């Protein structure tokens, strides 16, 4: 996983509540067996007209001023619905490293950290302010995970909280699996304590 310390980039607004993962990456693109290449399908049904080719001029992110945006400012309960990690993969592949929203769905929030995306929670009125500021041409934010602040060139400065464990993993780009494997002895000890009747797929008859 790529480290995250600080980032300055264009902030793009997506002022809608309850954006679900079906919207972030529609199901027809979940059939790929790779982790990469999902960016071009991000928000597909909003991005394109019904023909699937013509860009929808009304969709915020299609505006040229947001090309190259790396920070997404979004509405409450962002990422609700399906657990598909394809959603953060698509956001990341498109270029987003930071999301700012009043709240997130649980699984999505977690999936972001797994992929080096920083999801920041801010109060609803602060997010509203950022949503309107982001309408200005070329508006940029600097997100500093070391000092936990969001700043802009106009003197704005907003502190934010992030779980210390998550913060540390992001700053160092740590691999969660590697961390858990440090506890190999404890895992083995736990396994020896499990009741013998907890046999999973090994009990029963295997006949299909």
């Amino acid at each position: 996983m790529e480290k995250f310390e600080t980032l300055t980039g264009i902030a793009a607004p997506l002022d809608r509540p309850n954006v679900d993962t079906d919207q972030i990456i529609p199901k027809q693109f979940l059939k790929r067996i790779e982790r990469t290449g999902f960016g071009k399908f991000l928000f597909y049904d909003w991005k394109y007209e019904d023909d699937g080719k013509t860009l929808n001029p009304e969709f915020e992110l299609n505006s040229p001023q947001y090309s190259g945006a790396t920070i997404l400012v979004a509405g409450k309960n962002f990422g609700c619905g399906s657990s598909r990690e394809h959603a953060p993969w698509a956001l990341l592949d498109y270029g987003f490293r930071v999301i700012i929203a009043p709240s997130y769905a649980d699984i999505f929030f977690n999936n972001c950290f797994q992929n080096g995306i920083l999801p920041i929670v801010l109060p609803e009125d602060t997010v509203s302010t950022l949503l309107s500021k982001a309408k200005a041409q070329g508006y940029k934010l600097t997100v500093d995970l070391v000092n936990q602040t969001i700043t802009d060139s106009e003197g704005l400065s907003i502190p934010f909280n992030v779980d210390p464990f998550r913060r540390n993993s992001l700053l160092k780009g740590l691999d969660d699996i590697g961390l858990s494997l440090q506890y190999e002895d404890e895992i083995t000890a736990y396994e020896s304590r499990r009741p013998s009747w907890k046999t999973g797929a090994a009990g029963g008859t295997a006949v299909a």
Partner: protein
Amino acid sequence: MGKTMFEKIWENHIVHEEAGSPTLLYIDLHLVHEVTSPQAFEGLRLTGRKVRRPDLTVATMDHNVPTTDRSLPVADPISRRQMEALSENCKEFGVTLYDINSRRQGIVHVIGPELGLTQPGMTIVCGDSHTSTHGAFGTLAFGIGTSEVEHVLATQCVPQTRPKTMEIRVNGKLGLGVTAKDVILAIIGKIGTAGATGYVVEYTGEVIRSLSMEGRMTICNMSIEAGARAGLIAPDETTFEYVKGRNFAPKGEDWEAAVREWRKLPSDADAVFDTLVELDGSAIAPHVSWGTSPGMVVPINGEVPGPDDFESEADKKAAVRALEYMGLTPHTRLADVPLDTVFIGSCTNGRIEDLRAAASILRGRKVKDNLRAMVVPGSGLVKMQAEKEGLDVIFKESGFEWREAGCSMCLGMNPDILQPEERCASTSNRNFEGRQGKGGRTHLVSPQMAAAAAIVGHLVDIREWEVE
């Protein structure tokens, strides 16, 4: 102070715990399907890791399998490749797989319980948000992302931050024609789609106690639609009765030992939850969704709301968008909304009891002209059982298509999709924009309501309909 059931299960599964870090929990059962697993297996290959406990891992294919003739090759080459990838991965890593040629194949949340893999007091994960379904057995079950699927494959553990606990108590008795589906839709309507975010919900009360396992699964299934990490229902005689004798359930002395443990699971009388929500079950009417989020529901005898019925700016805006997408005007009576399609199936309502309920309405009646009606059993075993009972004949004679098991039109990854503006009453769980096909309009309902709607061609209050 006593403990909640959640606390008991959580504490039973702690492998490692330290302040400031997520807790490492042991996973008793890992269910795997074709869509969220290929990148996880690939990750194992890249790092040279193995599946730690293939014996605690079970895979099936459900999301993009065709539900038509299984003897034909899968027409969509990309779907086929994903299914082949799962077969190859399961072979390489020694994981049990029920593929499309197995009669045990089906929606992952239907087959776990019906094979007896799902048992009380366990921890169960799957790369799918509706893993919450298994909570109906008093088991801590939650959806995970693909990185975590890889994590569990490699370590049989998952790091988790401890969620808060919420009790949702449904008192009283349900009225005639009111089902578990209506109860959960009413709950989501009340607390909202983020109402339980960060919580594990335990459903309690007289209504919940009186539900069958199928009904309890319907409730827990949609916990995620209220944002919950998981949903739980305490195991009781109904639960034990259901599990007993199933293929992977403990047998003989093991069964006795297991039941003794399971009886200790229910929350203690003096246990304290972080939050309590109460509903009067006898006041719940059959529910139907009008908008594009599962919180946008109203009683069937109600009207489509307008933007002015909402307080916050964001909710007003969302209502405008939803009304436009759904092609509805405010204050339309729900029961007047005409339908093009009816879909019965999914991990919410694709079990045998759901099919029986729908068939009981359809018996001797015909689907409205020009309406497309489809029933997709939740699993191969559900299909076999239904055929044994002659339900397939009832469905077919009334004009329903009788399909093979899978997720099908619940999410339209296979060829079963809605066309733009096609309006569908569906027994599934999500009415998001485009969920059942781009531009498709979904109304979530119970199996009974779906069946009745198929006959009259519009949404209908099952309570009045039964009287007719």
